[in-house]
């Protein structure tokens, strides 16, 4: 195969179409729908308890830890993509290389689990 940048044109057309759809729908809803404002109606929870304070409260660092571990394993998956595409050409050598790479990261994963990072309640 011989790819050139213009081969990506369909993707951009799709992107543009998706964006245009969102913009169109948003404009339409605002234009067509009736507008009735009141203090009660603009409240976050119209028929719930009264909201107190601010939504911007600090969140627990545990979420962040999970997110960071997600990024690391996400990156690991990225490395598998070019390997999978070349699986046949790389043959056994490539397989062993990947085994080493995955083995190291698996050890990391076991460490993280044993350390109790992914258990929410303790």
């Amino acid at each position, binding site marked *: 195969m*011989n790819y050139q940048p213009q081969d990506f044109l369909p993707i951009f057309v799709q992107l543009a179409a998706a964006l245009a759809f969102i913009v169109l729908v948003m404009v339409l809803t605002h234009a067509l729908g009736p507008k009735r404002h009141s203090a009660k109606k603009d409240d976050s929870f119209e028929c719930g308890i009264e909201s107190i304070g601010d939504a911007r409260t600090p969140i627990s660092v545990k979420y962040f830890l999970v997110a960071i571990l997600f990024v*690391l394993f996400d990156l690991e998956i990225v490395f598998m993509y070019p390997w999978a595409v*070349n699986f046949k050409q790389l043959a056994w050598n490539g397989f062993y290389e990947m085994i080493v*790479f995955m083995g190291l990261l698996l050890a990391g994963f076991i460490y993280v689990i044993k350390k109790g990072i992914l258990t929410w309640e303790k």
Partner: protein
Amino acid sequence: MEISNIWYFLSALTLLSALMVIMSKNPIHSVLYLVFTFFCISAHYVLLNAQFLMAVNIIVYAGAIMVLFLFVIMMFDLKKNIPESKSSLTKLAGSVVAGTLLVILIAIVRKNNIPAPLGDKFNSQTGMVENLGQVLYGEFLLPFELVSILFFVAMVGAVLLGKREAGERNF
């Protein structure tokens, strides 16, 4: 449309959104501009015919790393922490240094002795996944395996710094 025109348009867009990242007052807006900058850079990769980099840039940077940025912003109480503005001397020094680097780089580009791509060796398919994989798992074996050590350090570091210790508040 001429391809160089697309390039100029994209570059202007990239620079503009990158400037907005540091100029907007609201940190959430900064993050969103940063996402847009990453998309622009991905488009640059498309122009360079590096589809793998484009996909990875969007998945990892615009996707995952930006989520981390948002998490960090959410962890701070933004109202309390209004960053103090730097003194004008610091700003001046910073602008002078950055401006000097810019002038030097522009002067070098204008000297115009950038080597042309080698006609016979030029391969437009270098950035494709197949070719990248061949190089990554052949020639670049050592850096590839070392990256797992780097991941390990990052993982242990995150666990070390982020783990809740006994006696710390929990919510």
